């Protein structure tokens, strides 16, 4: 079982769209996939039309007894793909992690307990550097980082790399890819070229800026379901195939 985290500590970079479409692609490729929506905004859950049970929340018990988490699993409409929907209690996950008194490995241990049912667990993470993020960096085998090729996003990615250096995390886990790329913009082109020179691990395939991605909110489905032949859909497929080689 592999754990993939979709992470950026900058919001609005296409992180959730990537998590949803990549989870769907992984499932279509035959991986028994579980997508865990850790972002309290719950956009991934919304795209898959999954709501949490009223009353269910992440508590100390969730980390201690895997059964509690197992009851939160919901099967999606697509074969091989399950989901743990986001819930409001996730807002306090950071505090909860601190309360557990445990170190950064608590999430890793929890995921290991539910790993037998799945080949791939994909985590849609909230945009922040927090105790949760540190747990993610330990728990994940690979961390997908969507980066818009702009100076601001580049700076954010630099900060993330620096954070990894400072904390002595394994930087090889980081798999950045360009997201929301507008090929007509010179700035995007130049930033992308410059970043590729500095970071050799940036994935070859990029996700273009597309209204089809925005329309996922209307259709509440992965892009393949309503824009099959479109460029953005092809881009997610190519990106998934590239990521698969790293698994």
């Amino acid at each position: 079982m592999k754990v993939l985290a979709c992470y950026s500590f900058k919001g609005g970079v296409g992180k959730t769209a990537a998590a949803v479409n990549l989870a769907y692609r992984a499932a279509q490729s035959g991986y028994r996939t579980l997508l865990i929506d850790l972002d309290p905004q719950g956009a991934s859950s919304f795209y898959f039309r999954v709501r949490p049970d009223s009353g269910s929340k992440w508590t100390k018990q969730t980390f201690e007894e895997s059964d509690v988490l197992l009851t939160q699993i919901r099967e999606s409409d697509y074969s091989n793909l399950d989901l743990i929907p986001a819930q409001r209690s996730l807002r306090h996950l950071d505090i909860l992690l601190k309360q557990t008194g445990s170190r950064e490995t608590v999430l890793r241990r929890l995921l290991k307990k539910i790993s037998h049912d799945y080949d791939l667990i994909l985590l849609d993470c909230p945009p922040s550097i927090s105790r949760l993020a540190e747990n993610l960096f330990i728990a994940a085998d690979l961390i997908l980082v969507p980066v818009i090729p702009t100076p601001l996003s580049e700076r954010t990615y630099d900060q993330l790399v620096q954070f990894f250096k400072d904390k002595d995390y394994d930087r090889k886990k980081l798999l950045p890819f360009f997201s929301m790329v507008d090929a007509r913009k010179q700035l995007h082109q130049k930033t992308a070229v410059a970043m590729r020179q500095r970071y050799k691990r940036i994935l070859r395939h990029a996700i273009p800026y597309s209204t089809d991605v925005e329309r996922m909110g209307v259709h509440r489905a992965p892009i393949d379901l309503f824009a099959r032949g479109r460029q953005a859909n092809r881009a997610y497929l190519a990106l998934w195939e590239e990521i698969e080689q790293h698994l």
Partner: protein
Amino acid sequence: MPFTFKLKKPALLEDLEPLTCMQVRNEGVEYRQFSVLDSVDWSIWLSGLVLINTDKNRLELISADGTCQASATIGLVRGQRLARELPEPLASKLKQLISVRALIPQFNCQWREHSLAFLNADDKTVVRATLYHIDDSSTESLSLLQLRPLRGYDREALTIQQALEPVAATIQGEINLRFLLQQCGLTPTPVPTKPEFQLKDHQPTEEAVLKMILELLFLARRQEEGLIADIDSEFAHQYRVNLRKARSLLSLFKKDLSPERFRAIQLPLKNMAKNTNLLRDLDVFLLDQDDYLAMLPEQFQSGLEALFKRLKRRRRQVWRKVTAILAGKDYREKTKQLERLINEPPEFSTSRSQAPIKKRVCRKILSQYDKIQRHGAHIDATTPDEQIHELRIEAKKLRYLLELFAELFSKDQVRRLIKALKRLQDNLGRFNDYSSQCLFLEILIPGVGTKTAERDAISGLIAVLYNKQKNEREQVVDMITAFSSAKISEQFQKLFACAAAKDSGS
């Protein structure tokens, strides 16, 4: 775990929405139409599998959990097919199930399968379902519904189940192919191949033996239809096996019948068996054709193929002759007369004929075992083949005694003895088979129209079979010694000596 229902009246998709107050999406309909193939004794079905011939001309072997174990595209099967005529791996799997029996279309059925999805207020699928409509002219139309809740949505499935309660009855378990076939009216009732005599320990011997012979004759005659239709070689084989058992029984209890009655039964039974001798010889040879092909190198294969072709034609002629006899008036009258004769009340012309059957059988078994031990003790490496064949016949008589009268004894103990005897019989049987096959082939060499290639192949086969026969011959002494051992002897004594001695004054 799926929820399964039988709807009280046929339901349509549109009926489900108002009943469950949920949106139901139609995700497609599939028409399933196929025939079920099996051997005449339903071996595949009885082993828990189903062989279907789909409307797409595919043969699929389906296991109880619905997985396809093997398949092949072969076209529609109208008549019979032998497993060996099918492509691998289907052929091997079927051979294990039906051996040399032929596959015949046994049952035709059709139904519709609607795939449905129950959606919640977010248009999210929460329960998937299959609605089966069985609308066959032979059965009343029937609707079955199977719900499979998506993980995490058991509560929604429960709500649907509760909503359906007034119009549906819950069924235990899952809907699978077997279940659907049964709902379509398939209730295989295999005809018993092994006789059940319902003997009583104290039944007078003559009465019991006559009853058994009649039952065996009846079983033999039940094969006539399949033999005439030439479904597979097993019909002729079973016809002969039952007649052989009847004849063996008759000869074992010869002295319990009046000489007149014995002769009046013996001769017609002998003639009945004789009618099919050549047919069986040809069948045995043709059934083993794959083995024969494997025995000889490449350069002999064409000669062998030509031989098989010729023998198949010959078999056809012989079968026609047998069919003409079996369908003929003379045969029918004679067998009816024989049945009447066996059915006549016992004459009790000798004191033995009135003795209780169990006691007589015990004595017979012990004396038969003793006979084998005595004959066996004289057999060594130099003993002529004829004596080995005689021993084989005696062993077969003992086998029939143990098998036919097993119901009078502890089945487990008898089974153990049969197992021990079988080891000896297998050895003697192979020895006999190889030698009779050599004889059969020798007759073919000077046959009219036999070409050189065929002659070479026959000679080659005789050489191989002769070697095999020699190998078996070398094991005979060891096998006899094993069967005559103190341990086996003790088991025979333990099981039969006491009952044989009981009431010895009567």
